[in-house]
């Protein structure tokens, strides 16, 4: 009986199969980024405004989902009154998750994107330099906003909002305790007011201490912005280990060690409960905390007020920037110049910025979580949004525009800023846990940021 043996591939066939596999591997490895070629030259990528008198076409605009998306969506009708032949495809997108990959692949790249200022520098290689189109407006835009969008002489974002830091305080609780907030001019005064409040309301923890590593670092940068400094200088060199940062950290350390602070993550259940109970009465934060007073604090709505931040020394700046966003235009977008017209309308045309910050369906009294960064739109005498009932009908516009004018000039946010949270943000929390001193935070964070982030750029 004949047995069938499994047939072995003939040598020639084996060679062919191996050759095919090798070709495939080599072919596949040829795809992807080229190695050791000169990098793309960003200098030549300056966006120009369209010369056509009646521009037409279709643009895709990405925004975050939520209230701002609704606001911008409603403003498209106003834009189309000026530019009837431009169709806006407005999409709500998880920008943090999707933008970087889209820019890398170059597929379905949008024409304009709403982006955190802190993320602009990291993507600048694939964005248009908008220096030329911004030129007619640049002198009227808050200097700090131009600064944070500037990289190597180019400007890579159309500034959207200004987010001045303010001191929110529970006026009713302070009055009941006999503490006069108008006497708070410096951070030493704030400490004193907190001690007075605690003496009147035993067990209270008057000052907010942020427990999220990311937001804690963002708030730290607000304090630093007040002192005219930031984590890196204009050349991207680290300048964390400085007297200014030591002063800020010492203040936060004192709040914690003296039991004057509520340690909680921004608006988590503990934070809200402490705000509503009258235990936490001072909240140094960006203007956008006004959202909380309107939507998350029903018990104390109407009790809250806002004032400029205390100064670090007599006569010092009474605000610093905390967060902020801009509009960026990817170079691979099909109609970037038309997207520029859209943003130009929203930010620099009265009809546009009134549609964004003025009363609308989403914010009947106007969008009061930020103010425009464009001077003529942020005129203290011509408020775009009205008094806020939850702030006792206070004129937040006047407070915010005055505070915004106090923000010192800034420098670009380094591309590694968000990565620094693993070091600076975490070490700040360790200090508040009593595990590190302010000096240790600065030295350790500087070393770690240098070796893990800056040296690896």
């Amino acid at each position, binding site marked *: 009986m004949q047995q069938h043996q499994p047939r072995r591939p003939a040598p020639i066939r084996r060679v062919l199969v191996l050759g095919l596999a090798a070709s495939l591997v080599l072919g596949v*490895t040829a795809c992807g*980024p080229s190695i050791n070629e000169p990098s793309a030259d960003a200098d030549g990528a300056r966006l120009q405004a369209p010369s056509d008198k009646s521009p037409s076409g279709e643009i895709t605009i990405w925004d975050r989902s939520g209230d701002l998306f609704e606001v911008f969506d409603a403003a498209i009708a106003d834009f189309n009154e000026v530019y009837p032949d431009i169709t806006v495809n407005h999409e709500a997108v998880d920008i943090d998750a999707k933008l970087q990959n889209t820019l890398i692949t170059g597929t379905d790249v949008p024409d304009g994107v709403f982006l955190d200022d802190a993320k602009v520098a990291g993507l600048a290689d694939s964005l248009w330099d908008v220096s030329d189109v911004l030129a007619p407006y640049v002198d009227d835009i808050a200097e700090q906003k131009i600064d944070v969008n500037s990289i190597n002489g180019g400007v890579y974002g159309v500034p959207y909002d200004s987010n001045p830091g303010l001191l929110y305080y529970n006026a009713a609780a302070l009055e009941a305790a006999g503490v006069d907030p108008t006497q708070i001019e410096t951070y030493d005064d704030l400490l004193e007011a907190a001690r007075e409040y605690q003496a009147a309301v035993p067990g209270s923890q008057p000052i907010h201490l942020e427990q999220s590593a990311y937001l804690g670092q963002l708030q730290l940068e607000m304090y630093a912005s007040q002192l005219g400094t930031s984590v890196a200088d204009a050349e991207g060199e680290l300048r964390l280990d400085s007297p200014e940062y030591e002063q800020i950290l010492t203040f936060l350390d004192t709040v914690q060690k003296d039991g004057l602070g509520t340690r909680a993550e921004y608006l988590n*259940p*503990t934070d809200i409960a402490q705000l509503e109970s009258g235990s936490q009465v001072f909240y140094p934060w960006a203007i956008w905390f006004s959202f909380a007073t309107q939507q998350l604090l029903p018990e104390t709505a109407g009790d809250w007020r806002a004032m400029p931040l205390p100064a670090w020394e007599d006569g010092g700046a009474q605000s610093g920037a905390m967060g902020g966003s801009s509009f960026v235009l990817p170079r691979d977008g099909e109609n970037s110049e038309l997207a520029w017209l859209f943003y130009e309308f929203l930010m620099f045309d009265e009809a546009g910025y009134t549609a964004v910050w003025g009363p609308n369906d989403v914010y009947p009294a106007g969008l009061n979580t930020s103010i425009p960064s464009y001077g003529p739109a942020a005129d203290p005498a011509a408020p775009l949004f009205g008094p806020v009932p939850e702030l006792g009908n206070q004129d937040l516009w006047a407070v915010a525009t005055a505070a915004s004018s106090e923000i010192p000039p800034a420098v670009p946010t380094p591309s590694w800023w968000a990565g620094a949270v*693993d070091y600076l943000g*975490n070490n700040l929390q360790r200090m508040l846990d009593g595990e590190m001193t302010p000096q240790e935070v600065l030295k350790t964070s500087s070393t770690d940021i240098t070796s893990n982030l800056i040296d690896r750029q």
Partner: protein
Amino acid sequence: MTALTSARTKRRIAPYLFVAPFVAVFLAFSIYPLIFTARLSFTNWRGFGAAEWVGWDNYTYLLGNAGFWSSLGNSSVLWMLIIPVQLVLALLAAVLLNNSKLRLRGFYRVAFIVPFVTPLVAIAQIWVVVFDQNYGAVNGLLNIIGLPDVGWLTTSEWSKPTLALLFIWKTTGFIVLILLSGLQSIDASVYEAASLDGASPARKLWSMTVPLLRRTIMFAVILQTLAVFQMFAEPFVVTQGGPYGSTTTAGYYLYNHITRADLGTGAANSFLLVIIVMALSLVFVRLLRAKD
């Protein structure tokens, strides 16, 4: 003769044509990414422009980096907190659900699988509220019996057990299903014979069920080992890797490189992770074979 040759050729080509769709997909979505990633791991590419060849730099950086080892340590601790507890719970549940006398058996089977199919983001929101240090229900219960508040998600000591609990709660139903399928393949006569010999339920479980399920259990262990070392969504939505990186798992640490556009280091990290996970899987397979 020509017709015969043609038929023979068709017969030879046919198998290749049948497997061609799979091979094409496999090449496009497995081999290409693998080779691309391998190549990327030797560059400093950040997503734009040209990539610079950096040799072994990304690997040496990671192997000398405390954060990398810490992430592996975190994953190892989570593995120890999760796998033994989950296996015991899943085995007991599977044995109970396999009992034909159990009333509402269908209901319990569905109940066990519900956490597995519920979106993690929804669960995470509840977890954050329930485990809040000052106003969470868990600490509320502890206070009732006179115990102090615990920083479940805000202290390095407790964040890992809390995350492990979430993982166990969410995925145990899946392991129950796997073990249940294993149990149902065991011949009932084995248990009948043991009963005739006077074996107690505990003795049957320990001396018969567990040995007969050994392959299924090992399969579950390998699956869950892969899941724990690649765990990303749980720390991402509940703790963002904190506090102080105490819940930064190997998978989450890898993600951090990607978000910083440090794609070369991310690629190197993923290769190191593949090697570690493959080594662990091989150890488990060896253990299984040794017992055979």
